[in-house]
């Protein structure tokens, strides 16, 4: 009996983790009918976001108040990743054949894994990423000021040329000056920023003039200036951040497993209840799932945004006619999944005591299995499916006799369950929608 209870606890812990990740698959699938294959990577990024926060600000400390900060850091990292991925990769493909987003997702997956690995091995590459980010932000600022809808279906690269040219060349000027002389004093920094902004504005204006006949809209000069100035300021700020924060940390190599920080209260000696051993991190994981489920229920059923989500998942076209901003709902769905995945990432780190840049793949696949098991598109199905899958896995390790039992085969059993469910009950345990998508 003790053995059974022990496996039940283990299964529920594992299952809570799957459930937290599975919600991300199911929410996105319910709204855009897209299997966000890269969601496992969002979970991995969450764990690494927490670790990065820890290394940047609290290296070596163990007090419990660090945990919320780490969770916030994890959420920022994974929500940022998920939203950026939706915006850059998935949105342009929304009406493409089904194959395209799936292949994109594989690409994103590989990209994110390698990005994390390279970031930990060679943190100096962050500068390149940050400069790219600066250009992007400058471009967005310019778009805001100009009040042009740059993602409008008919806008082409010619419309974007002035803003991109301005942001890009402003940052380019800044980069050149920085390369010539990396240590500038405060006055010169201001000079460089102003110079970058001016040159950027000029080049952006020229670019605008050059494509004037082909562009469908004119970008006003203040917007170009805003793009250039915004880009160069962000570039400078991120450089300061890099010098003051990132380059001071001794980053562990991601080629091996990286030890995850141990925090008081949630890690440490296990509790004994009767004959059952319960890890502290297991309590944290199950507790996190419980809190998240309640909040999720409240969000989906009691808030305007949540009801909007339900409407979009039932009928996107009608929802649009009713005045719901479908694009925003989709972004919210991605962000919602990412928040839960971030919490799962932290839990995984606390439980396993180390994390790895490849861990998202298998976890994501298992979580997808859980989502399918519960009925994809059904949010609470994902929670139930995750728990059931976790318990089945734990029981399989314990009770399957002979050589095919044991922990080496548990992943195989999980996938066998996936195949069986898809074949015999594709609508899942709780059943949400008929699955017949080409």
């Amino acid at each position, binding site marked *: 009996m003790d053995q059974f209870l022990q496996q039940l606890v283990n299964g529920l812990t594992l299952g809570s983790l799957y459930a937290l990740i599975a919600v991300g698959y199911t929410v996105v699938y319910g709204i855009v009918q*897209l*299997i966000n294959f890269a969601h496992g990577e969002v979970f991995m990024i969450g764990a690494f976001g927490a670790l990065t926060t820890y290394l940047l600000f609290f290296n070596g400390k163990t007090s419990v108040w660090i945990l919320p900060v780490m969770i916030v850091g994890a959420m920022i990292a994974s929500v940022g990743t998920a939203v950026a991925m939706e915006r*850059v*990769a998935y949105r*342009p*493909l929304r009406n*493409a*054949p*089904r*194959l*395209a*987003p*799936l*292949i*994109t997702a*594989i*690409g*994103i*997956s*590989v*990209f*994110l*894994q*390698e*990005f994390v690995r*390279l970031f930990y091995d060679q943190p100096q590459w962050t500068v390149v990423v940050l400069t790219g980010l600066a250009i992007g932000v400058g471009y967005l600022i310019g778009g805001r000021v100009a*009040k*042009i*809808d740059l993602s*409008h279906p*008919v*806008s082409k690269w010619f*419309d974007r040329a002035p803003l991109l040219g301005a942001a890009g060349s402003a940052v380019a000027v800044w980069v050149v000056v920085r390369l010539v002389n990396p240590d500038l004093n405060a006055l010169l920094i201001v000079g460089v920023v102003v110079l970058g902004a001016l040159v950027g504005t000029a080049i952006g204006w020229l670019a605008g003039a050059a494509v004037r006949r082909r562009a*469908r*809209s004119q970008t006003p000069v203040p917007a170009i200036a805003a793009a250039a100035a915004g880009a160069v300021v962000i570039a400078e700020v991120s450089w300061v951040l890099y010098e003051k924060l990132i380059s001071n940390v001794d980053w562990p190599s991601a080629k091996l497993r990286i030890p995850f920080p141990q925090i008081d209260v949630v890690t440490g000696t296990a509790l004994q209840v009767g004959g059952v051993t319960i890890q502290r991190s297991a309590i944290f994981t199950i507790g996190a799932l419980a809190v998240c489920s309640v909040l999720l229920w409240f969000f989906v059923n009691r808030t305007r945004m949540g009801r909007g989500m339900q409407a979009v998942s039932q009928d996107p076209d009608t929802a649009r006619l009713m005045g719901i901003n479908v694009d925003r709902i989709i972004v919210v769905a991605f962000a919602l999944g990412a928040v839960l995945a971030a919490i799962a990432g932290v839990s995984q780190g606390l439980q396993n005591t180390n994390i790895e840049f490849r861990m998202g*793949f*298998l976890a994501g*696949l298992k979580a*997808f*299995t859980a989502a*399918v098991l519960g009925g994809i598109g059904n949010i609470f199905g994902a929670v139930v499916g995750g728990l059931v899958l976790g318990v089945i896995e734990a029981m399989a390790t314990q009770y399957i006799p002979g*050589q*095919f039992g*044991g922990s*080496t*085969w548990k*992943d*195989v059993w999980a*996938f*066998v369950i*996936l*195949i069986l469910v*898809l*074949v015999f009950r*594709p609508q899942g345990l709780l059943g949400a929608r008929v*699955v*017949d*998508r*080409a």
Partner: protein
Amino acid sequence: MTDVETPVDDVAEAPVAKPGKPIAWPLGLVGVALVIVGSFLSWSYDGSILNDLSINFYPGGLQILAIIVAVLSLVLLLAERGPLTKLGTWLDATLGLRAFGVGLTLYMALVIVAISVESDGLINVNPGAYVTLVGAALIAVSAYLLPLHQLRDMSHARLPDWLEIFLISAMMAVVLFLAAYALGLGDAWSFILCLVFVATGATGLFRTGAMTFMSHAGQRHRKVLTLAAFAAAFLFPFTQNGSDANMSIAGSVLVFSATAMGLNIVVGLAGLLDLGYIAFLGSGAYVAATLSTSAFATINWKPPFLLVMLIGAGVAALLGLIIGSPTLRVSGDYLAIVTLGFGEIFRFSMFNLDGNNGPNLTNGPNGIPGIPDLELFGFNFGDAHTVAGIELGRFSNYYFLLLLLLGFVILTFARLNNSRIGRGWVAIREDEKAAEAMGVNVFGLKLLAFAVGAFLAGLAGTIKAHQDGAVSPDQFIFLESAFLLAAIVLGGMGTIAGVLLGATILKLLPEKLRFFSEYRLFLFGILLVLMMRFRPEGLVASKRRQLEFHEEDEALAVEVEEERLAVEEAK
């Protein structure tokens, strides 16, 4: 937020014929002259880099490449005005010249970068390189000043049969020569520069329409084209002088291409996304390994290899049927995930069947090493032998065998594609319900696609096991499946040439450009995303397929429809 004007009809924006500037043509000639003169001068002070570009009046390999582009540009300039104007009514000289000019300028800029990186700084760049750079820039400028022409329809262009056949063979010979030359380049910079040259040449030829002509000629002499391509591939080992380094790369490219071609049936024709395809290659390889005479093989039955091939392929096909028959009821994304799960199950099983966690079949994580070389008809594939004075090593032997296999796979693909079955697959891919309503046996055909694809992969796997000499579970990870899929997507789904190109690019580049192996996967990820965003139909795309991804493109739709009508009329 919508200041954007309503779209203007794109057809109205067709390039207006601009009168060219009179200075353009002489400027281009000056550019060509400068490039040729500059290429005969020394480019670099340091003779030890880039295969020695330091001697005056004795051009090295990279300089000859520049001269070739210059000569091609000269031909186009003369087609514009001069003795070859007759050619000018067919070929779009201006567009081709633009490609050549821009490409050559990029090439020269890279040369200068390469010289200054490899030796110490710009000081080592000799005047010849600058002269050539200026010449290249002049060609580019003149090309942009030249007018655009109204051209005649390339499909009416005819040459005497013997000349067309000669051109096809010559093209294949050039491809063979280039491949041998590029693979022979040791250092990464030379290789990159050679790639830039190839890209420039190919873009230029496509822009002028010369390639359109070649493809029409190829259609007219299909057998010659196939034979020439096969002959070129067959002759490749003879260019390597018995060196095994390049032949082992070539062998792995062939295995990869053959597998990708098999997957192309499943994904490209039938439209079933299979993310666990590497498992079929793996099952073939494992069958061959366990039935080989390796000391670690676990089955004591040693049938001859031809039988092993059939068993391996059969086992793979059987697995395909087993996994396919229940799962093909689910479609689209779900199928992708199921196949992915299956691929993982395969890998875990191979990992676990080591005697401790199951019956000892695969030797677990260590795999089965020491697989002996093949022996077919008394000929041992490990032996080197000499043909026509050229030594052919172990990898060359496997290369020939794999070439036969690839030929077989391509033949299967082409025959199936043009049959009732292939048309059924395409119908399923386009619209499953409509296909079913038209009487296509959807389930049977899907299953057949799965089984045929698995069979071909299993076949490739049996040879791969002997070529590599070892199998282990970590050769068959998900990433390999993703690479196979990427080769198809990159090249162009459902095409033969495209998939071969994609497979070659994906396998060859990482091997030759070792220094970027650290960023290989990173760039691979970005490449997939960008490809799907900007050119989802692949590098070589069939028009039909292109239309699927660009539904709003009216001009393309009209073109496809006309093509279809033309084909029907011909019948």
